[in-house]
């Protein structure tokens, strides 16, 4: 059974006014347990609206969102349950920090879950460990941290709720390459250790290629593609028409193929590219 599934999910903005637009229209997706799904799409394609439905921040106009097969809007209890089961980390999450210390801020979510003090302590320390925040930082004010540390502290605040599904909206936006790598590594580590389902919204094709197993492409409020990384990235020209792009390395290999070299078309990461080039030249040397 899928962890999250939506049926006919539709949301309108400005309902009843002449400016009424559908932010998302008839979305039907199933997300299996333990998957890492990348969500891509142009600005205004409905990515943020979609993910805010999955934990019940927004109420759908039409259609249902199901968590483990139960409609999350069926009761007040189920909606609160969904908030904790589906952890949503917004874009620029560092702007949500508010407590006196980093520790207290990470503990905000678990506290709202009405857990015991020992359990809260365990979760805070575990989450801080995942995001690589050292113990001495935990007693500092969150406003004294660096940009990257703030971002990681905020992500830890969501992880500490130990949600079954973790949704991250552009977690690497506005970070330098080193900060970006750190975040992506910690997402990978978190997933490998906890086996949680993760949804990663990003417009960086390279990031998605590195982590995701499946990719969901949104275009003009509807699902344009939903399939494995291979399936989606092999439709490069369609993506390009949507104002999206395939990873740089994929484009290079497509160019090489156009020039008549016998290299694979399914290259999405630099590492794969390296292997493929080694294979190609190894073969060439033999011939």
């Amino acid at each position: 059974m899928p962890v999250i599934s939506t049926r006919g999910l539709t949301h309108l903005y400005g309902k009843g006014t002449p400016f009424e637009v559908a932010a998302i229209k008839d979305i039907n997706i199933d997300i299996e347990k333990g998957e890492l799904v990348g969500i891509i799409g142009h600005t205004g394609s409905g990515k943020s609206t979609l993910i805010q439905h999955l934990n019940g921040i927004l109420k759908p106009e039409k259609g249902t969102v199901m968590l483990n097969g139960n409609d999350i809007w069926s009761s007040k209890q189920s909606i609160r349950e969904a908030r904790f089961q589906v952890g949503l980390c917004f874009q620029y999450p560092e702007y949500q920090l508010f407590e006196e210390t980093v520790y207290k801020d990470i503990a905000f979510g678990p506290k709202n879950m009405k857990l015991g003090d020992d359990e809260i302590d365990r979760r805070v320390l575990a989450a801080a460990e995942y995001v690589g925040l050292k113990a001495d930082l935990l007693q500092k004010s969150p406003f004294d941290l660096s940009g990257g540390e703030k971002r990681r502290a905020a992500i830890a605040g969501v992880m500490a709720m130990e949600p079954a599904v973790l949704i991250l909206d552009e977690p690497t936006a506005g970070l330098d390459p080193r900060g970006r790598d750190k975040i992506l590594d910690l997402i990978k580590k978190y997933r490998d250790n906890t086996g949680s389902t993760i949804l990663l919204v990003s417009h960086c094709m390279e990031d998605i290629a590195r982590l995701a197993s499946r990719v969901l492409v949104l275009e003009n409020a509807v699902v344009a593609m939903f399939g494995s990384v291979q399936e989606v990235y092999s439709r490069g020209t369609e993506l390009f028409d949507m104002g999206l792009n395939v990873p740089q390395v994929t484009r290079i290999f497509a160019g090489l193929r156009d020039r008549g070299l016998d290299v694979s078309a399914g290259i999405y990461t630099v590492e794969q590219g390296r292997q493929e080039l080694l294979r190609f030249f190894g073969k060439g040397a033999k011939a």
Partner: protein
Amino acid sequence: MIKDITIGQYFPGRSILHRMDARMKIVLTFAVIVLIFLCKSFFSMGLMVAFVIALVFASRVPLKTVLKSLKPIFFIVIFTAVLNIFYTTGGAWTISIWVLKISEKGVFTALFMAVRIICLVVISSLLTYTTTPTSLTDALERLLSPLKIFKIEVHTIAMMMTLALRFIPTLIEEIDRIMSAQKARGADWESGSLVSRAKALVPVLVPLFVSSFRRAYELAFAMECRCYTGGKGRTRMKQMKLRVIDFVSMTVTAALLAGIIMLNIYFDKVIA
């Protein structure tokens, strides 16, 4: 929910009222508000009401929008009218019901008060419907500039007003975002006692303050980078200029004044 709040209710258009100089509009609005209180006979009040209705049509702002601005004052109108009915005495007749006395004068005063308040609100909403917030503050700056001799920094005040108006939508968006983020972490301000609800606002207010200060610093830097040093020697991209239309509207208002005085003299005053 929070997005439904409208601040600065400018209604875009190209009507006569839209094209008038904002300074003239402010001055004439004040003049007309004074005139409203000069109307003391049925005929002068009738002239005033006709004038206000004519302005509403001239502004091309939909009638529904104008009526909407009256909704919040509905209670005040009723309240003043009721008070006036019972507290004013005199006139040709008086009806007594139990301990309450309704006099002829009371009925008239109540009626006039209600009409006056409605006219007043309609006139002032027309000003904000047809003038952008920026030109309003610009005009206020110019109109208040004589205060400079008292060492009041009119330009700074006007700039502060402009910036405050500019950032209201931004802050609303910010509140919306922070509230969603904290809701995702299980924050709950829809249930519990008043104290716990007030406490639940801390996770929203602290980030809001922090980001407001950040924005303020960024804005100050950006303004300094563009060599902003205050009002001294500053020129405007849009020069305010009085045109024929402004002098015509001034004349119309003067004629209205004359008309109201005449009607007050020739017909019986119904209220003092």
